């Protein structure tokens, strides 16, 4: 019951009514109605009733269901602190990292709908197949190309240089796939490399230690690369790390244009 003493004296009747309201609110807040996707591509929503706790995350809800109500529920998680990028799901229609998403932020009238991420093949329940997502990182040539042996010492990178700042702005990606799930273009064109792979390529194009910046540009300037992006910013608005893949993709467009004019592509 909330402490009402700080709000001045109340009549006994008013206090009783106040207590009634408070109790009613607590009662309805005690449980959550949770609809969870079950099955693969052809599935259904199954409803569960879960206790509502303070500071409860959506991952806590899913874990409660799996441990207390239905041990056959499949889902993926690891670190539980927003570092590993394993627990992304669709919560009330939006892709989110469930370990850092508080129930109180997303519940609508005490209800939560949890589904697997969009744009990924569904394996079972909330687990999706991430293979295509990471294959596209490979296709985007989004891997570092070394130039010098480690024995030559550390490369000196000026922290105030433009390239370092551009790379820093995009480097904190945890590979959760939320941007990929949020991207309409991926849903229209399954070959599109997607925001995460292009964002990673952008960090490498700006890495002064990388040995093949034009190789990265060549890989992403293809048919389903950075030029396919419509700049709708679904990726940017949903990225849990507040990165802007849209800005990275715009950078790739600029750099590839410049490389084209120089005859490097």
């Amino acid at each position, binding site marked *: 019951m909330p402490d009402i003493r700080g709000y001045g004296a109340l009549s006994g009747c008013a206090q009783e009514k106040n207590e009634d309201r408070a109790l009613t609110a607590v009662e309805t807040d005690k449980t959550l109605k949770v609809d969870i996707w079950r099955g693969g591509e052809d599935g259904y929503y199954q409803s569960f009733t879960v206790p509502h706790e303070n500071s409860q995350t959506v991952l806590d809800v899913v874990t409660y269901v799996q441990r207390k109500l239905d041990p056959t529920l499949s889902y993926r998680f690891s670190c539980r602190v927003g570092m590993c990028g394993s627990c992304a799901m669709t919560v009330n229609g939006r892709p989110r990292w469930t370990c850092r998403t508080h129930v109180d932020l997303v519940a609508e009238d005490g209800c939560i709908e949890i589904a697997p991420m969009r744009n990924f093949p569904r394996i079972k329940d909330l687990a999706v197949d991430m293979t295509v997502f990471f294959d596209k990182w490979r296709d985007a040539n989004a891997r570092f190309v070394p130039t010098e042996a480690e024995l030559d010492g550390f490369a000196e990178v000026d922290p105030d240089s433009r390239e370092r700042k551009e790379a820093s702005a995009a480097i904190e990606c945890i590979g959760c796939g939320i941007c990929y799930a949020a991207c309409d273009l991926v849903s229209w*064109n399954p070959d599109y490399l997607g925001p995460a792979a292009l964002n990673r390529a952008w960090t490498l194009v700006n890495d002064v230690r990388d040995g093949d910046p034009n190789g990265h540009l060549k890989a992403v*300037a293809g*048919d389903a690369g950075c030029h396919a992006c419509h700049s709708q910013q679904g990726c940017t608005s949903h990225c849990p790390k507040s990165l802007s893949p849209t800005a990275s993709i715009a950078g790739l467009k600029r750099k590839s244009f410049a490389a084209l004019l120089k005859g490097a*592509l």
Partner: protein
Amino acid sequence: MSGRLELWLFVLQRMSAMVLAPLVLVHLGTMIYAVQGGLSAAEMLSRTQSQVIWPVMYGIFIVAVAIHGAIGLRAIIREMTPLLDTTASAIAVLFCLLVLILGFNAVEAIA
């Protein structure tokens, strides 16, 4: 489809947009100015035939629209329909030619 072609199409669409932006403003401004005293074919022709700048401007306009619209149409067809890429490209080329033919036909009429 090669990456270089996609890149060139991207560049062409952006450059044609840069040409179109000021021309659309001039076109809209002229329309608002021209309709003040009523609108008639004779009045329009007297203006467009008075200076060579008008047919030249609309000629550039037509070329930019044909390029910009065709590339955009190609992208829409490729993303929103199950048609093959070559079909989408063929439709875009036909659209480009149609806009050029109709457009220059109109420019010739006002010159």
